[in-house]
């Protein structure tokens, strides 16, 4: 069973208790019990004073929570037939679900003929990773962001994923408690305190030299490294313009080099850091000529707005006007710290020439540069087209990124065919011109609000040769376009954002050549694309069976016959106490269903490893909308 409602369950507890009573009852239904013992997973000793909580899987609200008795026993009574998720926590033991693996656990099923009263709940002692972060002078670094990565199999291979984060205290100390045993990596990411302090202060002008006295040690670049007692002068930019690179334990700057901390159950590991400042990277981004947005705007100044509502309403009607606003592409930077974990940067921005932005205060590392632009009318937010171009590059020194559309821009628009969009357009309402205001900032804010309010689906055009990607936002009607001339000619593979629940099944285009999910876009001529989208509307359920008996806690895996690189096509579940499993939201297609006992450490994305399991698997085909019931043979 997949875990997904841990927080919602707590929040809704009160609601559930009051809404619990059924509207009518013909006869009292049969009730069942869940009983068992909580034991230490290492020693097997019963654990008293552990808090055991049950949640109904069908109505994910926390039901009840009891402490175990001196002999480790717990008992829940008066339960209706159904599936229940069990959680337990105790001091010294992390809060964990019954037989928890990654996001999965084994639900307890109660009903006629099922034994739910002999549950042995092994609780793993929790471990701790702690340490101290200091700077080059040995002073504590406070309020630094500390990131914890845990090695997991969630993508089918051993990858380090960010699981939590914390901040250092005034002594530079951090502490991750309640960890399950496993393999971890730790990273620290912060800015030198003296550059933050200057940030709150006035902007320093570069014509004034700044003095760095004494023994500031900067580890690389052309900054003065001076251990002499005589103070020396460097330009101001060098004191305010240093950064700490993302630093992984033990003092390396990439996740690949990061040390793996093998943490045993109940153990405390220490990972200390000493940060060293380096000169910040300056990124120069060439942006295309600004794209005009047609804006319907109320021509009022701030004073008029402060007057009483009736008057302001009159003003709004009388003085709206159509204006063209130059919305230069909005450049944003994210620092990719690990796969699936990025941090939005807040660089210092300066336009050093028309169409040339300089962004400084950027740490070295994998930087994703995105330029967003928009086109449309602010009074018709649904009709505004958004697109962005992005590129990920590894920067170690000053770098220039060319986002100007030199050399062949294309005019691309299209429509996504999917039932989602038709429905979405009926449900959206937009009060236009709610907050009449002027100025570029207000307009950008209005655009942003409209963008957030709309359906969150983007269509990505991934360049097959350059490391470029272009994102177009799909409107509720399913339309998309690239404003102005943001998209360059070239070959692209199309895919939807993972959270959209959509997958490109086929393409049609006028003015361009298509092949499968790729499209070759020529220079100049208008291209119209029709994207046929498949929805994840299939499901599969059944029992994991071995020798005619159901198996609890088995890994049930649905392997696509043509996986490509799309991990979203794989589906997994953990079989519950009666052996049952459920795989919802599957894209139509051909798959192989397998079930593996003790399979939770397998690198299932590796064909070499899966090779031995696939022949015993069961091939299935899921037509759009299909709900299959099928048992899986446990290997």
């Amino acid at each position, binding site marked *: 069973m997949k875990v997904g409602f841990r927080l919602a369950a707590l929040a809704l507890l*009160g609601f559930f208790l009051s809404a619990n009573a059924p509207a009518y009852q013909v006869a009292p239904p049969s009730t069942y019990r869940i009983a068992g013992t909580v034991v230490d997973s290492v020693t097997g000793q019963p654990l008293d004073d552990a*808090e055991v909580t049950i949640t109904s899987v069908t109505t994910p609200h926390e039901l*009840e*929570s*009891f*402490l175990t*008795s001196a002999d480790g026993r717990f*008992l829940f*009574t*008066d339960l209706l037939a159904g599936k229940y998720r069990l959680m337990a926590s105790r*001091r010294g033991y992390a809060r964990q679900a019954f037989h928890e693996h990654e996001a999965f656990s084994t639900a307890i099923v109660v009903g006629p003929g099922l034994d739910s009263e002999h549950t042995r709940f092994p609780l793993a002692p*929790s471990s*701790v990773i702690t340490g101290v972060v200091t700077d080059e*002078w040995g*002073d*504590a670094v*406070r309020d630094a962001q500390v990131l914890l990565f845990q090695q997991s199999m969630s993508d089918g291979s051993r990858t380090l994923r960010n699981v939590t984060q914390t901040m250092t*205290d*005034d*002594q530079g100390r951090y*502490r991750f*408690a*309640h960890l399950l045993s496993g393999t971890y990596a730790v990273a620290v990411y912060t800015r030198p*305190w*003296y550059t933050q*302090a*200057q940030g*709150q*202060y*006035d*902007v*320093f*002008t570069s014509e*004034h*030299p*700044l*003095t*760095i*006295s*004494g*023994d*500031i040690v900067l580890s690389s670049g052309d900054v003065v490294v001076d251990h002499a*007692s005589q*103070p020396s*002068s460097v330009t*101001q930019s060098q*004191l*305010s313009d240093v950064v700490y690179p993302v630093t992984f334990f033990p003092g390396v700057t990439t996740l690949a080099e990061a040390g793996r901390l093998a943490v045993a159950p109940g153990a405390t590991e220490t990972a200390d850091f000493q940060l060293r400042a380096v000169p910040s990277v300056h990124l120069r981004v060439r942006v295309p000529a600004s794209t005009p947005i047609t804006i319907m705007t109320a021509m009022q100044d701030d004073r008029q707005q402060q007057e009483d509502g009736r008057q302001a309403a009159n003003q709004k009607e009388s003085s709206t006007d159509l204006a063209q606003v130059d919305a230069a592409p909005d450049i944003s930077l994210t620092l990719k710290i690990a796969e699936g974990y990025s941090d939005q940067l807040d660089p210092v921005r300066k336009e050093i020439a028309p169409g040339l932005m300089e962004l400084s205060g950027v740490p070295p590392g994998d930087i994703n540069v995105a330029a967003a632009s928009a086109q449309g009318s602010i009074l018709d937010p649904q009709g505004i087209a958004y697109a962005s171009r992005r590129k990920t590059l590894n920067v170690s020194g000053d770098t220039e990124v060319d986002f100007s559309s030199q050399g062949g821009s294309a005019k691309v628009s299209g429509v996504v065919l999917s039932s989602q969009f038709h429905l979405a357009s009926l449900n959206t309402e937009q009060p236009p011109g709610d907050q009449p205001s002027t100025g570029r900032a207000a307009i950008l804010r209005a655009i942003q609000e409209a963008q957030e309010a709309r359906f969150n689906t983007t269509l990505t055009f991934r360049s097959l040769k350059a490391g470029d990607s272009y994102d177009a936002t799909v409107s509720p009607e399913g339309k998309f376009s690239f404003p102005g001339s943001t998209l360059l000619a070239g070959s692209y593979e199309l895919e939807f954002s993972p959270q959209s629940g959509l997958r490109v099944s086929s393409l049609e285009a006028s003015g361009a050549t298509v092949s499968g999910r790729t499209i070759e876009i020529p220079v100049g001529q208008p291209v119209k694309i029709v994207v046929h989208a498949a929805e994840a509307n299939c499901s599969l359920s059944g029992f994991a069976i071995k020798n005619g008996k159901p198996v609890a806690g088995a890994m049930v895996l649905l392997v696509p016959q043509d996986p490509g690189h799309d991990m979203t096509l794989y589906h997994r579940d953990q079989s519950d106490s009666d052996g049952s499993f459920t795989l919802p939201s599957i894209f139509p297609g051909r798959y192989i269903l397998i079930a593996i006992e003790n399979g939770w450490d397998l690198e299932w994305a590796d064909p070499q490893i899966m090779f031995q399991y696939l022949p015993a698997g069961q091939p299935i085909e899921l037509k759009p909308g299909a709900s299959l019931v099928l048992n899986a043979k446990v290997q």
Partner: protein
Amino acid sequence: MPRFIPTILFAAQFLFFAYGTSAQSLPLSSSCPCTLQGSVVDSVSGQPVPHALVRLAAPSPRAALTDSEGKFQFENLPAGLVTLEAEKPGYLSRDSIGPNLSLPVSVQLAPNSPPVTLKLTPESIIFGQVTDERGEPLEGFTLSIWSHIFNTNLSEVGMGSPFSAHTDDQGKFRIAKLSPGSYILLVNPPEGGAQKLLAKSSVPSGYAPFIYSGANDLFSATAVRLLPGKSQQVNFSLKREPFVRLSGTVSGYNPGDQVTLTLWAAAGVQDPHIVFDPANGSFRTDWIPPGPYTLIAQATSTASPEASALASQSGLVLQFVQARESSPHSFASQQINAGSSISDMRMVLQPTVNVPLIVHGFPSNHSDERPNLLPRFFALVPKSPGASSPEYFPGWENPEDTHFSGDLRMVFSGIPPGTYELVIGPLSNASVYVESASSGSTNLLRENLPLSGSIPPIDVVFRDDPAILSGFIYSGGTPAPGVVVLLSDSRSKPTMLSTFDRTGAFRIAGLAPGSYRVFATVPAVNPDYLDPAFWQKISSKIQEITLSPKQSASLNLELATVEE
């Protein structure tokens, strides 16, 4: 919290940074560019502070880090006024809690100027551990520090909590960035008191909020005194207790009335769910920790029962809440020390009182500006022993009347009988002052107002002929910033002004004519101004002055300091 008003604390902090640049002007030397040398030292240990950031605000922004001996230098500076400020984590700064004692320094730079010494005051720290009765750590408990907050009239306006921390898996907590001063510590269990059940239908047990060192409420708690740069350890041992439930009946309301039940805990507002059945008047609370509570029931004939309570809880209400229509017509309050569940509470609602408030003496012309002359608020603050009920604010007697002509007429509506203090908020305009405030023969500038049945209206009289007092503060012959305090026999509350001007200059306008005792002291988080022992210590620094209407008097004050 009923009297939670953090705004003032932060406003005071801001003022610290508006440092003056009105230093005496020296003849400018033409022989610069000059070099400014200096060092940064720890104000407590006297030791140099290495790697501190020194910022030059004037003549143009520049910055440097001190070397390993705490030294810094700026070259190529023009002669004239230079303002310097030092900063380093671990020392008080603008984001510290309480006054920033690491103030900027201004110097006149000339050739061969002597080196400048900047002092950084080390921060104070509170740390410790929260455990249960077996010594096992308690995780996820919130530790908040509270301090008394005084408004500019030096009346205590409440307790503010500028900072809190959570205990970790070892039950440990740390709060840094604190200014020296007195703090009250409150430990709150996680939401719901960390209730735990042994089995179905058993009584849940959990933890009650705990005020160091076992006080019943924040105002009677023992403060922890923090010295600059010192770390103070405070440990808590809490006991899990069976929770209790309060139930009973409410009577004395009319059919169709909206009845609201509120439970106040001594350690702050509790918001347990209370089930009330208007058909038979029965009520029952959720499970709550045992301890002292005040249960309040009020009946309102309209459908907006919470308005009055909400308005009162929101702290400094800057406008006159139009609370009349929604104010309760009847009220009952009961203090309970709930050691175990109580099932027979009887809440008999009694009629509330309406008290008119008439403001006299405003200039009759310029009616548009008159609201701007009003104080920020009027409030009736309960003074009955053990009262932890909210403050009450007046509404306009006639909400439609916005002409402000003649006397201003307001009304405190739906006030439960009891003893109250009339608090008049700070005036936003120094051209008027409060000459008197009375109800019948009760002088409300000195005495509390007993409220029961029908009482005479409250008359507040403003006058527009205030006196001005100005002068300089010195400390050992050197100008210094400080707090000027004026006390008058005709008023129970002192008048206070904080100055952050390093020239020591102060100017207090809007003073009521009369005789005052005046002194200057250093800013502090929790001043002991209300403590007789404090008066004893500074008696030699107190001066007396009599101000006549529209007089501009001047006075130089010697800074009174009270060392530990």
